[in-house]
């Protein structure tokens, strides 16, 4: 019974847990409760992954209403991959947050902040689980609203400004997305994504369809922090509490990219996209601009959170570039990098959180020699940094390797050069951090390692980067499969 409904339960469970969590007393309980929920979600996600591996696409009719009238939950290989990623990151970050957030926020807010985290998780899981385009919008708003609230919880008053900016930008993005959906609905009379995909081909040449495409790409591009729509992101992640930043950096932009791939290839379809003039070169141009601009800005930033956030802008560029190749190999490479980037960014933000927990600041000028006091945290940070650079045998290398192969396949050498330049820039901005953290004299005089509850999740993710770098075959094969099925279905 439970297995049959797992597809819905994975979304419903965290949603039902939200009010419970908000009402829980004491500083510790909400965090522990949220952790349990996250682990249960992980269990469901693993079950569903196995189900998809066996049966291909899982379908579930909400309330027994048949699609296209009712809402259908639809889980294919790509969705299952992102769902597992979300559950994994939540399962690792929530116990960390249970310790760090409980120390950082006022007593009265602890229940609320974990409720918001669960709501964010619900929204992100819902986007991935559903097969209904309007449902995607609803869950996108759920996740965004809880995201605004969480960012406003940052230590400094500037967090409020960052949250407000994100709110304005995010709302603009959501509105664009909604306009795009409205146009599609007007054109086809359906909101089920499978149904849309079958009805779109004859209509795709119409100006309405192309306008819808532009609105959807722009709206989702904003949520995914695609250059030049990224301005909200550095402030938001730098000001948010580190545990929140770790969770959002690893998941929120990734899910937005998932939606982008879903609409581009699962709704519009490859052949229709190729007919839109300049779409491919525009996406590639934005991807490259993001890779370079993000890295260049990161070289000048002084706050580690900001540096990591700007590096996310660059990494989103890599993933987008994979999508924008409009090929099976490119989409697969993008998905691989999407998964792995979540692992590395989460590891880096968690390590940063541990440092902030001890020193009280993430500003480079106040962190000299911290590495000597916190060797284990620093080891995890180094691991994440190496992975971010794309050193072989780390997770980051795998995505870049396949991305370059996919680009070379199309003979676009300038893209290869752009990727390599961005990689070299990432060495520069990460090395700056490493140098400062190892410098002497140190701000923390003696050994002062982070508490075990912060350290263990951080190290776990750091090791995951190594494992995924050494045994990438399962992930690569799954991504290839997801990519082939999505592009096969779209055309």
């Amino acid at each position, binding site marked *: 019974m439970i297995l049959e409904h797992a597809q819905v339960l994975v979304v419903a469970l965290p949603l039902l847990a939200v009010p419970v969590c908000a009402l829980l007393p004491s500083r510790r309980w909400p965090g522990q409760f949220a952790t349990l929920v996250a682990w249960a979600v992980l269990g469901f996600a693993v079950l569903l992954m196995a189900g998809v591996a066996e049966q291909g696409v899982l379908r579930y009719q909400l309330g027994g209403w048949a699609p296209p009238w009712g809402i259908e939950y639809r889980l294919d290989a790509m969705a299952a991959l992102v769902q597992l990623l979300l559950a994994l990151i939540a399962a690792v970050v929530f116990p960390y947050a249970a310790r760090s957030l409980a120390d950082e926020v006022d007593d009265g807010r602890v229940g609320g902040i974990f409720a918001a985290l669960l709501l964010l998780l619900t929204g992100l899981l819902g986007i991935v689980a559903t097969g209904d385009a309007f449902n995607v919008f609803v869950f996108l708003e759920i996740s965004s609203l809880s995201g605004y609230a969480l960012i406003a919880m940052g230590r400094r008053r500037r967090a409020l400004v960052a949250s407000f900016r994100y709110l304005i930008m995010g709302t603009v993005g959501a509105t664009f997305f909604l306009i795009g959906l409205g146009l599609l609905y007007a054109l086809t009379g359906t909101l089920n994504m499978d149904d849309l995909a079958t009805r779109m081909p004859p209509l795709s040449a119409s100006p309405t369809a192309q306008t819808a495409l532009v609105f959807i790409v722009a709206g989702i591009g904003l949520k995914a922090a695609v250059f030049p729509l990224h301005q909200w992101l550095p402030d938001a992640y730098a000001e948010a509490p580190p545990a929140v930043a770790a969770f959002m950096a690893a998941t929120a932009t990734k899910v937005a990219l998932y939606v982008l791939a879903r609409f581009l290839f699962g709704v519009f379809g490859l052949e229709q996209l190729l007919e839109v003039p300049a779409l491919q070169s525009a996406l590639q141009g934005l991807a490259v601009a993001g890779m370079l601009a993000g890295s260049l800005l990161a070289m000048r930033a002084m706050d580690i959170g900001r540096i990591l956030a700007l590096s996310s802008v660059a990494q989103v560029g890599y993933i987008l570039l994979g999508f924008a190749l409009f090929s099976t190999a490119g989409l697969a490479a993008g998905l691989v990098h999407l998964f792995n980037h979540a692992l590395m960014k989460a590891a880096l933000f968690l390590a940063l959180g541990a440092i902030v927990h001890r020193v009280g600041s993430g500003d480079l000028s106040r962190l000299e020699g911290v590495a000597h006091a916190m060797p284990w945290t620093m080891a995890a940070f180094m691991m994440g940094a190496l992975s971010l650079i794309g050193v*072989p045998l780390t997770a980051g290398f*795998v995505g870049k390797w396949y991305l370059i*192969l996919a680009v070379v396949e199309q003979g676009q050498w300038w893209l290869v050069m752009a990727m390599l*330049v961005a990689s*070299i820039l990432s060495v520069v901005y990460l*090395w700056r951090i490493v140098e400062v953290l190892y410098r*002497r004299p140190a701000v923390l005089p003696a050994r002062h390692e982070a508490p075990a509850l912060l350290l263990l999740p951080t190290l776990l993710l750091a090791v995951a980067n190594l494992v995924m770098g*050494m045994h*990438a075959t399962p992930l690569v094969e799954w991504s290839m499969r997801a990519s082939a099925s999505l592009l096969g279905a779209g055309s």
Partner: protein
Amino acid sequence: MTAGDWLPLLLIVPMLGAAGILAAGRVPNLREGVTVVTSLLLFWVVVQLAMSGAEPRWVLTEPLPGLQLALSPEPLGLLFALIASGLWIVTSVYAFGYMRAKHEAKQTRFYAFFALSIGAAMGVAMAANLFTLFVFYEALTLSTYPLVAHHGDDKARAGARTYLRILLGTSIGLLLPAIIWTHQLAGTGEFTPGGILAGHAGPTVAGVLLVLYVLGVGKAAVMPVHRWLPAAMVAPTPVSALLHAVAVVKAGVFVILKLVVYVFGMEFLAGVPLERALLWLAGFTVVAASTVALRQDNLKRLLAYSTIGQLSYVVMAALTLGTTAGLAAALHIAAHAVAKITLFFTAGSIYVASGKTQVSQLDGIGRRMPVTMTAFTVAALSMIGLPPTVGFISKWMILQGALEADQLFVVLVLVVSTALNAGYFMPIIHRAFFRPERAVAREHGEAPPPMVAALVVTAFLTLLGALAADILVSTLAPVMTAGSSG
């Protein structure tokens, strides 16, 4: 034990050694003992592997489908591994004297990273394919960074940053795309006698690839990617001696030789027009570096520029193509290694005993440090290419290879370079032995015994190498003929 069992030990021994060094950090004598034992063990493992003559294969992991991290010995790799691990023993002994006499800080970290660097060099030597080569090549860069930045002051940090920037920049920006491109063209990156690119790439593409490779292997220091080498001279002298005369720079030229033989194949490369241009670039580097060396007053910088020139001898010989030239390149790797490490040892000894770092301060020092300066003279003769040293034989063979291949350009470069080499080494010898000492700053004799012993050993190797060259040539000959005929 079969030959296959020895292979993992090449990585395990240095890693365990590093762990042991860290564990014994509080007891200097024990720590130094661990270092020596590790270096002896490693050398023994390499010798066992070389003696067995088998070519086993050890796959560590297969991170991506069809992309293996694998080690497999072959004659060229064994040669490089023998040189690096053998000279590590001598350098360890030298380093004890140097580091103690200079009261260097952080010696435990120093020895530990030294062991890791040698492990990475072993990986480079035994790499079975391009991917493995790249992994260990980068590991070598990263594990030597703390050694270059050892002093930790602003000057050391700036030098180390240049070191890292150029080596990582060229390897990520040029070498990695070349490797991926090769994979895309040939469908494999396995080192195969006779090459893997023939039939998969046209002459133009192969030419571009060769440019990417030669400049991407920044460790070979072909101009214009040579600047890291003088910058790395901020390191303590034992580091300069082993890493920047042997392990790191030799890894560079060794990789180029290996690429020519096992990836391109000499026969295929002969039909690539751009190959000539790279030969000229290497020749230019030889002459230009020697000219710059002529104007250096700092002894270590002079040696660094001399190294740049000598490395390009190897690159030039490899690119001359042909059996004799290929053998000459391999022999010159060995010849330059023993001679240049001797020179760096003497520079360090002079510095420790007298505090002198400049050539112009060396008047009359031969009388205070006769053993050291005699070793210097032997090594300098090898650099210039005069008998009875090993440098004479390798240079002779390069000339012979050039004549066989009708490369008069190479002959010309060799003649000019020999004159220049004599031009900057002879005055030092003259100063040391024939000029009277100037105002005495402080009384001193030879450097501490471990240092003197080490440099005497390497000086003897420079002489003995001339006798052993024959063995080396006969062992390596089959590789080169496979490379040029098939």
